[in-house]
């Protein structure tokens, strides 16, 4: 019986999730949305998570990073080891620095996941300024680099666009 999904070789995993348990408090009881989920992730590996809606795959990932609103969500147990720290035990402030800094998150619907009232550039620059302490000019340059990296042509001009004027493909990359 394994402890959970193990990496192919014996190298230390980047992320190691053990027995994660998340419960939603609802009127008249609790919903066990994530139940003793364990897996790990090796450096450079691409792990697929398959399941239908309601199977708990999104909730699992949100639990890792404390993105679920609490209440009603309550991450009950388990450990999430990332770079030697247990993400479930560190302070919210420390966890905040992990989010967007060392762990990135891409969501489903690019249209609703981007804030419609801020420019794309502003939204890319926000974490740069928050986590890497870049000034406005450097952040802008880096944002441009990133857009080029993800293959958006005319990155410099795109920075000042709002998400709505972005085609779906560009918004998601």
């Amino acid at each position, binding site marked *: 019986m394994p402890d959970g999904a193990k990496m192919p070789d014996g190298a230390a995993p980047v992320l190691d999730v053990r027995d994660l348990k998340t419960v939603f408090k609802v009127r008249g009881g609790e919903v066990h949305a994530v139940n003793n989920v364990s897996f790990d992730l090796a450096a450079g590996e691409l792990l697929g998570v398959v399941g*239908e*809606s309601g199977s708990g795959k999104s909730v699992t990932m949100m639990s890792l990073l404390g993105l679920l609103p609490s209440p009603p969500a309550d991450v009950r147990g388990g450990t999430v080891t990332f770079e030697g720290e247990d993400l479930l035990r560190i302070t919210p402030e420390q966890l905040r620095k992990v989010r967007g800094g060392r762990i990135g998150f891409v969501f489903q619907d690019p249209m609703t996941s981007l804030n419609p009232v801020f420019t794309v550039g502003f939204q890319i620059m926000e974490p740069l300024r928050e986590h890497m302490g870049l000034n406005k000019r450097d952040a802008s340059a880096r944002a441009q680099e990133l857009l080029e990296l993800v293959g958006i042509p005319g990155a410099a001009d795109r920075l000042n666009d709002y998400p709505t004027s972005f*085609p779906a*493909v560009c918004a998601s990359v």
Partner: protein
Amino acid sequence: MLDDTAKPLVQVRDLQMHFPIYSGLLRRQTGAVKAVDGVTFDVIEGETLGLVGESGCGKSTCGRAILRLYDITGGTISINGTEIGAMSQGDLRPLRPAMQMVFQDPQASLNPRMTVEAIIREPLDEHTKLSTDEKEAKVGELMDAVGLNRRFAKRYPHAFSGGQRQRIGIARALALNPKFIVCDEPIAALDVSIQAQVVNLLEDLQEKFGLTYLFISHDLSMVRHIATRVAVMYLGKVVELAPREALYADPLHPYTKALLSAVPEPDPSLAQTRERIILQGDVPSPANPPTGCNFCTRCPAVMDVCSKIEPTYQEVQPGRFVACHHYETTGTADATAGQA
């Protein structure tokens, strides 16, 4: 050549649906979104015609236009021999029972304040003179037919899962014994395991009631499963129409090829080896389509002529229609003799 025994139930000729764009101080019409721009095809009685394409290509608009949910800009639509393209909405009303629609989002298309029974009965109230008891019996039959428990007749839509809600939508469409149903992305909002249930249901009903479907979807594998023939739309036009097997085995139009190659292959060994055609760029705006061939801006096999002359939509092999210059120049003799 089409099989002579196959009788077209729906004939669409040069259908156009343009939405005007107004601008300027006096709101003069300055252009139009050419959502559907000259579409021609038949739907043969008893078949399922799949209509595929990317979002924004006009496939949904096309479906709605055929049912005359819009006042169309041009072209003709004949259903069961009756020309309805230019009919007034009032004159259409008695014909409505024969043509129905199943919508994509069962959540949004069901009135949350009506019970399931009321939702299914509503078309009966509108279009038939059945007694209350007869209507009740009919609602029960319909619920049986789509696999909904009759006990749930008094419940409201929110009490049902997505798949069940789609069944309610189907039952409503079936209430008036239609011949022709436009299914507009009926499974897009459903989970994988539920999609199969709904598709099987649609197939069963087709067999049982002799229905004809126009099945609009962006899910090419599901269309391959359900459709007998498939039409591929790009930017308001049908670029290719062919029997299912032929289309999937040997797509003629470069767009169809790209589209098929982009479908993910649920077999890792095949997935590794498959060669993908990745289309570059964005779909142009239907308000301002490119000159010549609509696809010329993204076509991997583009030629000079493509950006100048619009290719003719023509039958290049028996039962296979395509609109591409490659088949005009390299086509067979009967292709050059083909009608406009």
